[in-house]
């Protein structure tokens, strides 16, 4: 009823190619941005910000990274955790060497290192396809994990083997370290995630994004259209790993404050993969939906027993959480392999035609 594009005529190709060609979508996004930038920091509790919103944004960014590689370029990766780790550890080293440089610049720069590592482990993708590629990314995962563990230089030979985030200021306000308040950290992450998502959306609708999708859908045909497979795949690996790297750096610097090798283990990689699957392969909106789902659902599951007055062990809720997420993954693959994002789209489609169910 309210969601109609009737009467919205496009008179130029640039209007037709806009990210959100429908007016209602633009209004919706504006509302979301206002909520995110103004209402949430104003009214959100400290717990809500630091335990729900900040992790959600960090995971969403990592999911965007993985989705670019797996959903848009079709290269399955099980090494997201390790690539995030590369970002986190490089950011840590950068703060050690350049203590006076603005931390935001260092966080953005740390992504470059994970992009480079991503390219190295992406090289075999020219010869290795599909499931076989999973082994390459597993090699990356375990090899990098080992590096985080064994190379003392990476964590400044800290006897605990962990990296601890120093305090850094932005405009005189602490944004990393224990002193930083959740509101500030939240706004920093939100800004970075919003800008990076916009940039990703732009790349994905242009020539480069199209070349990734061509490789994904039919690599042979893509090559016959003049796409160089190696260049397309490596650029996807680099771009995707950059996003994962920045997400890793943000995760450590603006969320958990310290990290050790277990932070970025294989389970972490799987967590991001689940977000992408449930959210929807090949959809940026889906990354946010998936991240929200996988991160918020456990919070809900944890709160259900106490709300019902049942005394349940933390471990038990964790197991139930596993079962629920596993079932949901299977459910989504059976019912809608394109995830939450597609359900959302179908819903919008229905709304557009309402009350005529079959109009098109």
């Amino acid at each position: 009823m309210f969601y109609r594009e009737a009467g919205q005529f496009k008179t130029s190709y640039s209007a037709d190619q806009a990210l959100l060609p429908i007016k209602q979508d633009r209004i919706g996004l504006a509302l979301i941005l206002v909520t995110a930038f103004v209402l949430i920091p104003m009214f959100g509790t400290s717990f809500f910000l630091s335990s729900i919103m900040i992790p959600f944004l960090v995971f969403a960014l990592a999911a965007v990274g993985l989705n670019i590689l797996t959903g848009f370029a079709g290269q399955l990766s099980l090494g997201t955790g390790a690539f995030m780790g590369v970002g986190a550890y490089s950011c840590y080293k950068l703060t050690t060497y350049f203590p006076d440089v603005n931390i935001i610049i260092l966080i953005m720069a740390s992504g470059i290192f994970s992009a480079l590592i991503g390219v190295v482990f992406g090289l075999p993708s020219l010869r290795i396809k599909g499931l076989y590629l999973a082994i390459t990314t597993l090699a990356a995962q375990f090899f990098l994990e080992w590096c985080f563990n064994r190379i003392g230089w990476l964590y400044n030979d800290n006897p605990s083997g962990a990296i601890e985030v120093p305090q850094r200021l932005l405009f005189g306000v602490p944004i990393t370290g224990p002193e930083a308040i959740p509101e500030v950290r939240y706004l920093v992450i939100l800004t970075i995630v919003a800008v990076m998502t916009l940039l990703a959306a732009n790349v994905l609708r242009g020539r480069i994004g199209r070349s990734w999708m061509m490789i994904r859908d039919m690599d042979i045909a893509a090559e016959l259209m003049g796409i160089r497979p190696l260049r397309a795949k490596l650029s996807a690996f680099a771009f995707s790993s950059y996003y994962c790297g920045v997400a890793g750096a943000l995760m450590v610097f603006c969320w958990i404050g310290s990290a050790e090798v277990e932070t970025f283990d294989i389970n972490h990689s799987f967590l991001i993969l689940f977000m992408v699957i449930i959210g929807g392969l090949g959809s940026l909106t889906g990354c946010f939906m998936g991240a929200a789902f996988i991160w918020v659902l456990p919070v809900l599951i944890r709160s259900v027993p106490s709300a019902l007055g049942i005394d349940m062990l933390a471990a038990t809720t964790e197991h139930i959480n596993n079962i629920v997420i596993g079932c949901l993954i299977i459910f989504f693959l059976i019912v809608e392999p394109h995830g939450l994002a597609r359900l959302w789209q179908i819903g919008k489609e229905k709304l557009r035609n309402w009350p005529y169910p079959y109009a098109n």
Partner: protein
Amino acid sequence: MEFLNSIFIAPFIDMGSAPDFLLQVVWEGFVSGVLYALIALGFVLIYKASGVFNFAQGIMVVFSALALVSIHKAGAPAWLAVILTLVIMALLAVTIERVVLRKLVNQHDAILLMATIGLTLVIKGVGELVFGGEPQSMITEELGIPTGSTVWEVFDGIVIFQHIDIAAAVIALLMVAGLGVFFSVTRIGRALRAVADDHQAALSVGISLNQIWAIVWFASGVVALVTGIMWGARSDVSFALEIIALKALAVLILGGFTSIPGAIVGGLIVGIGEKLFEVYWGPLFGGGVEAWFAYVLALIFLLFRPQGLFGERIIERV
């Protein structure tokens, strides 16, 4: 020079100077290789029959072993516990076929893989919920698996063979032989090979895909139980095993996804290779290289032979 020496020459001198130790290392590697091969075998069975890359094989090993131990703890004698566990694995196979596979026929490989990842989570959650997340010790003696060890004096030294390890190797061998006979002689085996060759053609001559799938999932459940018993006998049964089971992926890359001999040879290569590498080259890197050796080996191998050791050459068609 010093560096090259320490990589290319020194380790071999070490090997030559203590051949008994080398033999011990190779034997240890061989046994873990057998276990990798068993996990890989479970993968291969399912992959051959349904084209599904079963990520859940590792967790099925843990699950079956835990089920066995827990049922025994609940008071059942060992033989009954084995039978009940087999019943559970059969139920699991049928459920998976009914609830998951049947709904996902003709879907893309990657989607099926992801479905089995979801399955992994479910099995893991159920396993932890029912059997608890704590590591348990395997009921080795109750099952009549020999313990103790034999010492072999050779090369002026000794090599110790754990009886459990010998039993593992023998049982693995028997099981592979048994599966081989089953697939080549029985009617179900023939149907299974037909399905592996061409799903649609098999359907058109009246083979029930659903039935075959349930059977292979059960077969790999049996393989999982055997693997779980053997693995549990050497160390505890715990969910940590799930990560180690990922190494079977590397084994499959070496051996090819569809080859049973490939799974065995690949398993042994990975098992022996990683032990040798850890012992003789590991100190150069600071140890712990077992964690990634298998994957890196598989990766390097893939670059030269993408189809695996025994796989057929892939010719791309347009």
